[in-house]
């Protein structure tokens, strides 16, 4: 271990925090405008009413709900994965973890917006908060939406904590290198971190406990999201496998998102040195596993429905297999299964670009999956007289786009104020560089994760 390598590493990783290019302002401004447009559209929808969306009778849920499930799904990349990697102490995780946890935090914030956006009277949303009211009324604890409310808040809180804890030493590092308001700000953020062994010990154990705690939370959250659907007697919704099905799907889309984000960060902040092919490769393997699992669930779901052959379910099923929604369904199968499979299995193809391409496919595919779960079932619900269809209209699409812009914007700002790669963890890594290298070789050879 040499002082120089350390400081160079530190400088590399801190550069984004201190240097701000005009490119940054432009990107930020553009994104901000899109986000603002999203908010504007929301005002518009609130003002005139849900009628400006494409929702109708009987398809009362459409794009907003799809996006809700989608973003909550994305959020499962970060915290869950980094927690798992921490527990199994995969050393290659070090540069990845923070990128991942940040995704969780922001994806959750954005995802949690959509239940509000889809409300007919959002200004009354506070009725979901349990408090002793003058009306002598409480929220209906039997409602999956209320479960959502609690689950998502818990997850958001814990993953913010999980993000903040390991950032403390880095805050301290920045504090020590700055003056003026930053010194003050980061001083506050670093909670008086001095790097004493006792503090280090506390941090480690805290991280370990958090990691253990966060896994069940993460899993429960998306299970509960799946309950929004599986608890209702609606064709193709009322299924027992929705819990695990959603969790797998969530992790699946999450990893994909993580890959894409990492690639972008790597390019934009010139972190090629730290985010190496191995990270993409390993995450790729993880994604492949999820792809297979997901495919297995889809197969199950469809097969059982088809075999069961209850009339009101068949209508919804066929509409996705051969009917009106089949193009989307087969695109989904292609994106989630046929495309990633070769890209991630065949060793020669396994490059960063390939992984990113696969990931893009998966993100698209998983969005389609959410849509195909929600809309066809509602279209073919109840007596055939009342069947319907759904087409989104511009407000939904604008808000959908704005949600992506919001993600990018938040990420951009975050990387502006906090090093996107945990510096101290990298240092710890470097102190055992040789070990890492060895491990890398091993894992290369063994072709396994750790």
């Amino acid at each position: 271990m040499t002082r120089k390598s350390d400081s160079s590493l530190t400088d590399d990783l801190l550069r984004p925090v201190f240097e701000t290019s005009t490119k940054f302002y432009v990107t930020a401004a553009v994104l901000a405008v899109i986000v603002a447009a999203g908010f504007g559209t929301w005002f518009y929808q609130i003002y005139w009413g849900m009628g400006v969306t494409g929702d109708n009778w009987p398809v009362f849920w459409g794009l907003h709900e799809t996006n809700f499930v989608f973003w909550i799904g994305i959020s499962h990349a970060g915290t869950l994965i980094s927690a798992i990697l921490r527990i199994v102490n995969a050393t290659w995780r070090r540069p990845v973890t923070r990128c991942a946890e940040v995704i969780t935090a922001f994806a959750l914030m954005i995802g949690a917006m959509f239940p509000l956006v889809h409300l007919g009277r959002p200004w009354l949303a506070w009725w979901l908060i349990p408090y002793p009211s003058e009306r002598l009324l409480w929220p209906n604890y039997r409602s999956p939406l209320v479960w959502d409310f609690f689950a998502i808040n818990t997850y958001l809180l814990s993953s913010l904590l999980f993000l903040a804890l390991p950032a403390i030493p880095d805050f301290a590092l920045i504090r020590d290198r700055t003056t003026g308001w930053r010194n003050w700000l980061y001083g506050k953020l670093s909670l008086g971190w001095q790097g004493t062994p006792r503090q280090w010990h506390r941090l480690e154990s805290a991280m370990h406990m958090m990691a253990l705690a966060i896994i069940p939370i993460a899993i429960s959250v998306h299970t509960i999201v799946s309950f929004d659907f599986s608890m209702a007697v609606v064709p193709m919704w009322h299924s027992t496998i929705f819990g695990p099905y959603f969790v797998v799907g969530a992790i699946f889309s999450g990893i994909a998102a993580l890959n894409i984000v990492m690639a972008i960060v790597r390019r934009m902040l010139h972190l090629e040195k730290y985010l190496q092919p191995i990270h993409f490769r390993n995450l790729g393997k993880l994604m492949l596993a999820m792809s297979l699992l997901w495919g297995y669930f889809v197969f199950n779901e469809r097969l059982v429905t088809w075999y069961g052959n209850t009339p009101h379910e068949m209508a919804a099923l066929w509409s996705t297999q051969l009917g009106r929604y089949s193009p989307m369904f087969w695109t989904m199968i292609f994106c989630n299964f046929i495309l990633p499979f070769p890209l991630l299995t065949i060793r020669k193809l396994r490059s960063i670009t390939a992984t990113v391409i696969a990931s893009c496919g998966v993100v698209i595919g998983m969005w389609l999956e959410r849509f195909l779960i929600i809309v066809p079932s509602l279209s073919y619900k109840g007596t055939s007289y009342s069947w319907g269809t759904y087409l989104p209209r511009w407000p939904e699409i604008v808000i959908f786009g704005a949600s992506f812009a919001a993600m990018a914007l938040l990420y951009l700002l975050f990387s502006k104020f906090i090093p996107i790669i945990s510096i101290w963890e990298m240092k710890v890594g470097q102190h055992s560089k040789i070990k890492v290298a060895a491990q890398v070789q091993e894992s290369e050879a063994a072709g396994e994760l750790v």
Partner: protein
Amino acid sequence: MPHKWGMAVDLDRCTGCEACVVACHSENNIPTVGETEAARGRAMHWIRIERYWEGEFPEVQVKFRPVLCQQCDEAPCEPVCPTYASSHSEDGLNSQIYNRCIGTRYCANACGYNVRFFNFFTPSWDKPLHLQLNPDVSVREGGVMEKCTFCIQRINAGKVSAGIEQRPLLDGEIQPACVQSCTANALVFGDLADPDSTVSKLSKSPRGTKLLEELGTKPKVTYLQRGSWDDSQKR
């Protein structure tokens, strides 16, 4: 003793004249959404006459089925509402409490009969059409779910007058607008808790069936299937 309001629909009598549909609009201030919105599938009809073709020309037949809220005992719409806007009333009605509704539309998705309707926009009446509105029923605003109430305003009015006169409610004293208007007397409304009421008797008819019974929602609306002439000849 709490009441248990129910309805029997005699499909052998129903002529599909749709008097009930307009009666319902008139009684319950149901908004007329207009051409554009109707084209988007947002027309509101708390009661509708579903019709199904059977067979092929020339041996073709039609079956009519008036569908309104089935007022299920095990209603899928009730547990899913986060604010108790959709709740079970003492009389077993699936009541929709407009002021408590925040517009998640979850109840409408859960409902297997698609009898819940959402105010996508705040309704408006070109003056002076608003003078036709029934002052005993509130006008629902945008963002609120609404559905058949079995004409709760008539039920409550009946209870009040009976209460003031300190007498029990009579069978047939309360009639929802659709029942009152049914030209062929296909709709019968009454108290299922009272075994002697017409509706209880009809609900026990061998012709009686429930709509989408397999959902296990225990509807309080009984459909009396169409008879066939040949059978009645055999008897």
